[in-house]
């Protein structure tokens, strides 16, 4: 079991759900009041510390200790309101565990994320299979609050904990031929019911890729945590990519392989529907998905009678940092 069982709790000590909920409402009120009092500089931890009653996924002890030591402020973080923990961890596209947004949470809870290893291969001087502990050894974790824009035209603001992908890639010493990085998700139909479905359109395992300069960009994050705790399985535990200026599907989950290549990798969605999904998949309000518009998005969680419709920003609002990676490129062609 990955979620540790609490020591014996007498039934009398368990708070009835109604009272628990009232208390949550009260705490939310406090949190809202607190947020008003605090200046805009308040750290993200303070912004969600009051919500600690939420049941958290904690992950292995060794990782928890590292997560506790994470640096809490980053120049790359946004101060927009966060999507609540329950939605970040309960509303997921992770087709390995099913097509419904609540399937990953429902079917990933027994997913084994520790021990975990990643195979490094291709155009690199130090190939090999590395344990996650070794990958994280000497790495300083930091919190990054990023906008996540899904290709389905919704978005959330999520406090990830991770480290720049660049720092890891450099340790493996890519060769001069390494122009792209290809990532692979675990293929394990026994653990991943979605991979057993015979009516899917995706060829497993899921594959994603980045150009070397995209991979080395300081915004590109390898995440091991969210909301200060370990990534729950449904969010791509134990190691996932976060590329905030690209549609969410680029941010591949539960990575077991990193391969350095000379040729541009063919990512899973491009293989499935090349007319609809390209390699770059940069968030771009002026290039629509062939079936739906990308010019606006609904910021989740949304309430029914005031849908949070906002204009989608080029590169998901990170244009200042990343637009020059694509100067001279026709982004209509390289969608």
């Amino acid at each position, binding site marked *: 079991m990955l979620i540790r069982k609490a020591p014996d709790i007498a039934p009398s000590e368990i708070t009835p759900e109604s009272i628990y909920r009232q208390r949550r409402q009260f705490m939310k009120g406090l949190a809202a009041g607190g947020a008003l009092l605090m200046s805009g500089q308040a750290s993200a931890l303070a912004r969600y510390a009051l919500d600690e009653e939420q049941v958290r996924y904690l992950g292995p002890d060794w990782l928890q200790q590292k997560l506790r030591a994470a640096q809490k402020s980053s120049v790359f973080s946004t101060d927009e309101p966060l*999507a609540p923990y329950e*939605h970040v961890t*309960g*509303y997921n596209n992770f*087709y390995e565990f099913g*097509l419904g*947004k*609540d399937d990953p949470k429902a079917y990933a809870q027994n997913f084994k994320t520790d021990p975990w290893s990643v195979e490094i291969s291709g155009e690199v001087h130090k190939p090999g299979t590395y344990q996650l502990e070794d990958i994280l050894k000497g790495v300083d974790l930091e919190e990054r609050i990023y906008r996540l824009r899904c290709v*389905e035209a*919704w978005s*959330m603001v999520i406090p990830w904990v991770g480290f720049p992908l660049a720092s890891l890639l450099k340790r493996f010493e890519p060769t001069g031929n390494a122009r792209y990085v290809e990532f692979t998700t675990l293929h394990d139909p026994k653990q991943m019911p979605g991979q057993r*479905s015979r*009516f*899917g*359109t*995706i060829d497993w395992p899921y594959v994603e890729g980045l150009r070397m300069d995209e991979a080395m960009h300081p915004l590109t994050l390898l995440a091991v945590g969210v909301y200060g705790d370990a990534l729950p399985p449904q969010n791509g535990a134990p190691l996932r990519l976060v590329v905030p200026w690209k549609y969410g599907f680029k941010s591949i989950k539960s990575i077991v392989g990193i391969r350095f290549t000379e040729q541009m990798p063919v990512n899973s969605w491009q293989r*499935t529907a090349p007319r609809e999904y390209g390699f770059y998949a940069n968030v771009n309000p002026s290039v*629509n998905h062939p*079936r*739906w*518009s990308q*010019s*606006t998005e*609904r910021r*989740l*969680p*949304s309430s*029914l*009678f*005031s*849908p949070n*419709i906002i204009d989608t920003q080029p590169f998901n609002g990170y244009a200042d940092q990343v637009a020059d990676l694509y100067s001279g490129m026709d982004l209509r062609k390289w969608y």
Partner: protein
Amino acid sequence: MVLSIAALHRSTVGRWSFWTLMFIGSLAPLGWISLQAVQQQLGADPAQVIVTFLGIWALRFLWLSLAITPARRLLGMAWLQRYRRMLGLYALFYATVHLLAVATFILGWRPDLLLRELTERPYIIAGFAAWILLLPLAVTSTQGWQRRLGKRWKRLHWLVYPIALLALLHFVWLIRAGYLEVLIYTLILAFLLGYRLYLKWR
């Protein structure tokens, strides 16, 4: 069960009770999703859950209304005929609430977005066309209109077949990673329409 329902329909009280049961039962999906929404049980994106749910139920009622003729003939349930109109009208009802849910919960009645969706998105155009075509069928579903139109009534209500195909197309164009559900609805519709062709050309 089948026999008892048939027996039920021999008395006025029985007919009336069963009609009421069907009428209220058909509102159950709407009641259920409304309750879930009020209790905030629909997750981060209740709008999408509601819209998908209502759309699926519109499709189910349309398929059910198309299943009456085959079921009546193959299973000999003559009493089913009485409910064809109700099921057809419920298909329009759920399609209408589905449409209102899209406009309200997803698009916030923003004119620019409504126009954009209705002119640029093939899957929305297909779904909207199906809804529009259902309207004349609903209006002329009464016995009065049936009498007035005579032979032309049947010709007009033949429209339900292109409507079903448009609705299916609307569904197909929404596929992203899995097509099992769409496949099931397609196979059922293929049977329902295929049976009619069989009757015609056997």
